[in-house]
């Protein structure tokens, strides 16, 4: 009894003995699963990145010098370093606008790119006393205030707590490493105003920066009072002052979301085309091989195998091929995504937050369900044909 041949054993032997057919079908499923998995992981990572960015932006409105808007946007969303000068007197002027509850300013400085590993890095200086944008997040991560010789760094800079770093010839100690945000902050070094003052007054800075005192900032963040319309306050500022760009933070993300929607549409179209093509290909291969195997099925029936068992054999064969192709596709796609994640996030120009284990598992299960469903559906035509014939007919047709 131990050596009793089960339906699964027969299906498995069939899959193994028809290596070429199994290989071609597995390849179709492999490509489908790899594409589906890649598209799903990238889209979910971008959605997470945008959600995380919207949490981190903190302010209702940002005001920047008109010609520097794209630089600031790139620095915030993708971490592309920039140095932006904006007169500090703008803070007072903006505080006078009706509806503005509070302001906080930030100074953006790009570090010097002297050597390979010391490529340009974004430095953001902020005033801990009035900052409501990055301070809460930094305190959440480091649980202490910074001194003028300390910096807090983004997680992608490869620095560790307690490490010594030098910017513009000024030495700092890394007081903490921030958790991943998926936006430009992951490549950014945060320093308080006193620390920024040390940099500005350094010899190196004198040669490279055009500011010699701390009367300059780069961006003003505004919080709007309760009961005031953010758009109305933004319009009031834009009408009152020239040479500045006023942006509602939720709309800044709107542009990014628009880019993401474009990418998402391409991904969905690609996935649908691939699912259709793979289904057609697998259905065709299955139909052809089942026509060729009519004699084999006829013998099975004449030896007492029920049609239910035959159907089980065919469905199990499809399931085995689908599972192998899917797992191989997901493994290959997952490995490429894992190893090249930094390259992907750097080239997306969209906030990109890598998925955690649970997120990956959910996508993996979705992919398996889709491809397994497709594999089983592709056998339906063959099963209907088989159901209509009896053993003798199958033997005759197969001759």
């Amino acid at each position, binding site marked *: 009894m131990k050596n009793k041949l089960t339906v699964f054993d027969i299906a498995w032997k069939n899959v193994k003995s028809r290596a070429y057919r199994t290989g071609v079908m597995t390849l179709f499923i492999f490509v489908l699963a790899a594409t589906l998995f890649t598209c799903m992981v990238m889209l979910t990572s971008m959605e997470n990145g945008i959600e995380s960015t919207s949490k981190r932006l903190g302010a209702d409105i940002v005001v920047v010098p008109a010609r520097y808007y794209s630089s600031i946007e790139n620095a915030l969303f993708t971490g592309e370093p920039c140095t932006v000068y904006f007169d500090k007197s703008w803070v007072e002027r903006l505080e006078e606008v009706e509806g503005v509850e509070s302001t906080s300013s930030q100074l953006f400085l790009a570090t010097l790119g002297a*050597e*390979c*590993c010391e490529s340009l890095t974004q430095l953001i200086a902020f005033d801990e006393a009035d900052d409501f944008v990055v301070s809460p997040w930094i305190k959440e991560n480091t649980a202490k205030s910074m001194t003028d010789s300390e910096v807090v760094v983004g997680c992608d*800079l490869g620095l560790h707590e307690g490490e010594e770093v030098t910017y513009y010839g000024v030495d700092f100690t890394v007081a903490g490493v921030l958790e991943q945000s998926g936006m430009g902050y992951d490549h950014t070094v945060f320093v308080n105003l006193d620390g920024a003052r040390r940099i500005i007054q350094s010899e190196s800075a004198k040669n490279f920066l055009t500011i010699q005192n701390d009367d300059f900032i780069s961006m003003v963040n505004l919080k709007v009072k309760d009961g005031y319309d953010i758009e109305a306050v933004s319009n009031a500022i834009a009408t009152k002052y020239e040479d500045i760009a006023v942006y509602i933070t939720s709309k800044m993300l709107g542009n990014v979301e628009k880019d993401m929607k474009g990418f998402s549409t391409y991904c969905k179209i690609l996935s649908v085309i691939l699912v259709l093509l793979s289904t057609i290909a697998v259905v065709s291969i299955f139909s052809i091989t089942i026509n060729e195997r009519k004699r084999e099925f006829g013998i099975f029936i004449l030896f007492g195998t029920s049609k239910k068992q035959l159907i089980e054999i065919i469905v199990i064969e499809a399931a085995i091929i689908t599972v192998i192709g899917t797992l191989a596709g997901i493994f290959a796609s997952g490995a490429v995504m894992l190893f*090249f994640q930094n390259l992907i996030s750097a080239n997306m120009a969209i906030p990109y937050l890598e998925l955690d284990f649970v997120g990956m598992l959910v996508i993996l299960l979705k992919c398996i369900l889709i491809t397994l469903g497709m594999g089983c559906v592709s056998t339906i035509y063959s099963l209907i044909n088989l159901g209509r014939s009896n053993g003798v007919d199958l033997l005759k047709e197969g001759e």
Partner: protein
Amino acid sequence: MKNRIINALFHILTGVLLAIGPYTLFQVCDTSEKIMKCWWSVRAETGIGILIVFTGILSWILKNKEARLALNLNNIATGIVAILIPSWLIGGCAKETMLCRSLTFPAIYIISMVIILFNIGNLIYLRKRIGNE
């Protein structure tokens, strides 16, 4: 014969990729006055690539299955060393967005993993063939 040709072609191709890829297809940054760790890692990978090409040629010449099995074992170890060079033995730049960390090393890891998996597969195949004889 078929197995020997596939083995040889695979190892020559992956070996050439490991040896030349970091200077062409998945390049590291240009060197400045100060030579960085990633540059040394890539130089070591060139040596590993040459070794892989050499074992590819050997697997073409050698007809003895036991000897080819030993070559497979050697290639698995070489693949592991190819991964360890950039990740632990020598290393690269600290910043994750640098070319070496985002492009060159991941490409090396993937090629090395493919080499290891291929050789494990071939090892199992040859063991079966030897057992059947």
